[in-house]
């Protein structure tokens, strides 16, 4: 058997010593969003089987428009797989007023609850507040009852 050239061995060692490249995806972020949703399912919330996501740099926000119906109660759950990231989701009505009745932030997760006062369009504002990654994957799920 031929011995590997020295440069190849050096390259291999170097490769093995380097941190593994990140294969994190929105799917990983989604698992945290669904973890956040889990306790609320027991409270009667139906979780929609669609999810929204992408990646964002720190401090850049995104707005998503959503039609909400008066008479329903909604929870929006956001997740990220990045260990030390801090993320947030907040809900504003069509006039730009904060519409959520509560929100929280935890490791890997954030959530906000809204009981719409009127039927109409609402803005979901998602943000990566802190992260050591250049871009951080996030995912958003929601439930209603």
């Amino acid at each position, binding site marked *: 058997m031929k011995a590997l050239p020295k440069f190849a061995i050096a390259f291999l060692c170097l490769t093995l010593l380097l941190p593994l490249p990140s294969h994190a995806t929105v799917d990983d972020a989604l698992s945290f969003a669904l973890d956040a949703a889990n306790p609320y399912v027991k409270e009667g919330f139906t979780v929609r089987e*669609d999810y929204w996501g992408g990646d964002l740099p720190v401090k850049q926000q995104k707005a998503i428009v959503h039609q909400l119906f008066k008479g329903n109660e909604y929870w929006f759950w956001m997740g990220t797989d990045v260990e030390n990231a801090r993320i947030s989701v907040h809900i504003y009505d069509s006039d730009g007023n904060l519409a959520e009745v509560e929100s929280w932030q935890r490791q890997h997760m954030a959530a906000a609850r809204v009981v719409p006062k009127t039927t109409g369009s609402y803005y979901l*504002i998602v943000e990566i507040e802190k992260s050591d990654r250049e871009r951080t994957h996030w995912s958003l799920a929601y439930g209603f009852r």
Partner: protein
Amino acid sequence: MKHRVFFLPVTMAAFSLAGATLPTAMGQAPKQHIDVGKLPQQATVVEDIIVPVPSEIFGVLDKLGSPNWHDVVRTETPAVPGARAETALLLGDVIAEGFISVEAQDPEQVKKIGRTVLDLSAAMGVRKAVVARCSAIIEFADKKDWPRVRRELDGTLMDVKQAMTELHDEELAQLVSLGGWLRGTEALTQVVDSNYTKDSAGLLHQPALLDYFQHRLAHMSSRLRNDAVVATVEKRLPEISPLIGEADTDISKQSVEQIRDIVHDLVSAIAPNPN
């Protein structure tokens, strides 16, 4: 539960705020007010939005009382149209009909709809994606497990659209959504009109959704826009906009009836009575 991610690149790119608005310090309380007028133009014109699942609106209707859903149910089974655009519209319409049949708690009608969904999906080349859902609809209708039937109908709509998107038929997937929205809106106007209250009429206040559908139709390929039914829908949708009201304005009974008449015409074009 299926884990599915829909990327909305257009939405996300268009709605990027890039720090121009809404600055918040880490962990601080959110701002009490944002200037939506300073959002990028696409965010207000509605490039893309989250289209609610029918369960969201039927859930509210449940809370408003017990309308006579048997009056709203359509018993005829529409024939499968030849044109794909019309089949897509009808598929959405029939799935919405499934929700109405669930409200009417009519297992035979729900089962019939499950089979029609399968036929229409086959015509669209996405049968495989919905076989399991349709079986579940029939199974749970037999058991009269209505919440579960609703979930499967929501899932069917999602799976059909996802399968079409995978086949690069996004525009047809949008027509499925539109067909469902029109039939759902027709049913909603019937229910609201039969026992009018300002609160129930308020459920029709969906300007962003209406903008979204109009925008989608306007940017559809000419192949689809030239379809006679699609063209009719595109022509008449703008008539609804002035009737669904501003955020602070009540939708009158008269407006509800006008909306009902418009959407009834469109649904009749999508699902003509086979007799």
